[in-house]
């Protein structure tokens, strides 16, 4: 499905990605985690062929990048919480355009659009202008865009960033449904550790451009001596506070602020 070996990417003197190996099998649900600047988005963009690595190799759904980028993208969908859809198009039009980019003829594309909108229960958005969508609606439409062509791998960069919990829940359950019923593999980045624990069976932690942990959420949490992924995240971000330091601060109020 995906095999990346020895990926390196530097911007000026900053080594954003420093020798990452990442392999994902069919149907896997994998999270790529790490603090800001760990190299998650750069890694994703390299895996998608949007950024060329300085070193390393990528094989994506059987195609070597960069040469096989176009062929690989026919089997991969991409969603980013921060990316809007073309704002002067209606939702149905925008989705139909992407279906065309995926090589689907108009009738088949329109059928896939209807199916996707129904699946995520957003048919009422079909005739809305993309620029009028809320961030949650935009994310749901973005997922429909990314699954129009029944991809083998769905890559999601911060899909639930800044979403209300109810919308995040819809996104998460929708993704689990896609993974379970279509056999689509998921590669997700997120800063929401609880969400990752519910969505993914495997987590890969990055720090300073390197893979520092790879395993199930429980395995990774145990390896770092924490009860959950949030503890691991705080540990890697360098913001974990030792218990003796907390005692020095005295009692904390309900919001965690020293009284």
């Amino acid at each position, binding site marked *: *499905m995906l*095999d990346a070996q020895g990926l390196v*990417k530097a*911007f000026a003197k900053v080594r954003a990605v420093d020798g990452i190996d990442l*392999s*994902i*099998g*069919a149907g*896997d649900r*994998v999270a790529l985690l790490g603090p800001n600047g760990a190299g998650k*988005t*750069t890694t994703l*963009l390299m895996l*998608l*062929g*949007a*950024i*060329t690595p*300085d070193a390393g190799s990528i*094989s994506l759904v*059987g*195609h*070597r990048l*960069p*040469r*096989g980028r*176009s*062929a690989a*993208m*026919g089997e*991969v*969908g*991409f969603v*980013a919480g*921060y*990316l*809007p*859809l*073309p*704002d*002067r*198009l209606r939702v149905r*039009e925008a989705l139909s*355009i*992407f279906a*065309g*980019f*995926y*090589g689907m*003829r108009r009738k088949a594309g329109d059928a896939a659009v209807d199916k996707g909108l129904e699946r995520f229960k957003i048919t009422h958005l079909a005739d809305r202008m993309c620029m009028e969508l809320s961030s949650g609606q935009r994310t749901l439409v973005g997922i429909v*865009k990314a699954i129009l062509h029944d991809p083998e791998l769905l*890559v999601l960069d911060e899909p639930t960033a800044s979403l209300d919990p109810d919308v995040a829940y819809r996104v998460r359950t929708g993704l689990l449904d896609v993974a379970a019923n279509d056999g689509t593999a998921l590669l997700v980045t997120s800063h929401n550790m609880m969400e990752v624990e519910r969505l993914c*069976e*495997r987590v890969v932690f990055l720090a300073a451009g390197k893979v520092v942990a*790879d*395993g*199930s959420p429980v*395995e990774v949490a145990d390896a770092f001596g924490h009860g959950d992924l949030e503890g691991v995240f705080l540990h890697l971000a360098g913001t974990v506070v030792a218990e003796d330091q907390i005692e020095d601060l005295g009692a904390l109020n309900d919001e965690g602020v020293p009284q």
Partner: protein
Amino acid sequence: MSAVDLPMPASSDEVPFSWLRVRTVVRRHGYVLLRSPHRWFDIAFWPVFDVLLWGSLGAFVAQENGVSRATTPYLLAGIMLFHVLFQSQIAVATGFMEETWTRNILNVMTTPLRESEYIVGLAVGGLIKLVAGMGTVSLTAVAFYSFGLGEIGWGLVPIIGVLLLVGWSTSMLVIGLLLRFGQSAEILAWATTFTILSVSGVFNPVESIPGVIQPIAKVLPTTYAFSAARDLLDGGGIPWADLGWATLGAFVLAGLSMLYVLRMLRIFRARGYVTRYS
């Protein structure tokens, strides 16, 4: 650690050129045109006013100074042919800029759409706009000045071909600059063709351009295309030499501009500039 199997089917990395995806690019920009009244200014508004401006100027000069009545056709043919160049260039350049304005580049780059399909789609969409724009311009010229580009005769065909090729090539240079320098290079989308307007003798022989600029004019294929149009308007035979230089220059420019935009695309990917638009 999760066990990962790595099936690597020996499938082809080559994806054939798809006219379906080209048509989809045309449709995508058709929707934008329908929803963006300001875009109609390039097609219907500015060309009409250019024809009125230059046609009136030609008529005035001919009437006041008793000079050749050919002045008006020279100016009208010049500005109408310039619009072939301008509109073929601006349609492709603004088509690409639309993706940057709507932060859609990453969405597009993560589909199977190939760069060549995208560019051909923009060019075909631009041709449709060009036909609409030239239709407007031609109606205006016929209605107010009884002039049509058809007076140039069959020589018009290669001249328009050269101008289209130069327009598309210039748009490649602009896209290359946008890829490399970001949205700060947008102004060049408009500036490049107006630079060509001023230095390639659109209305006048190259000898009337200031001497220091003439060497620049003489290497531009547009100079020979506009010169050929004037010769044809004067009733001369097909100016093969001018057309030959214009065609050769246009193909050289097309080759260089393709090399440039491909190089800028490699830099765009290598330096991660896509994040400017996400």
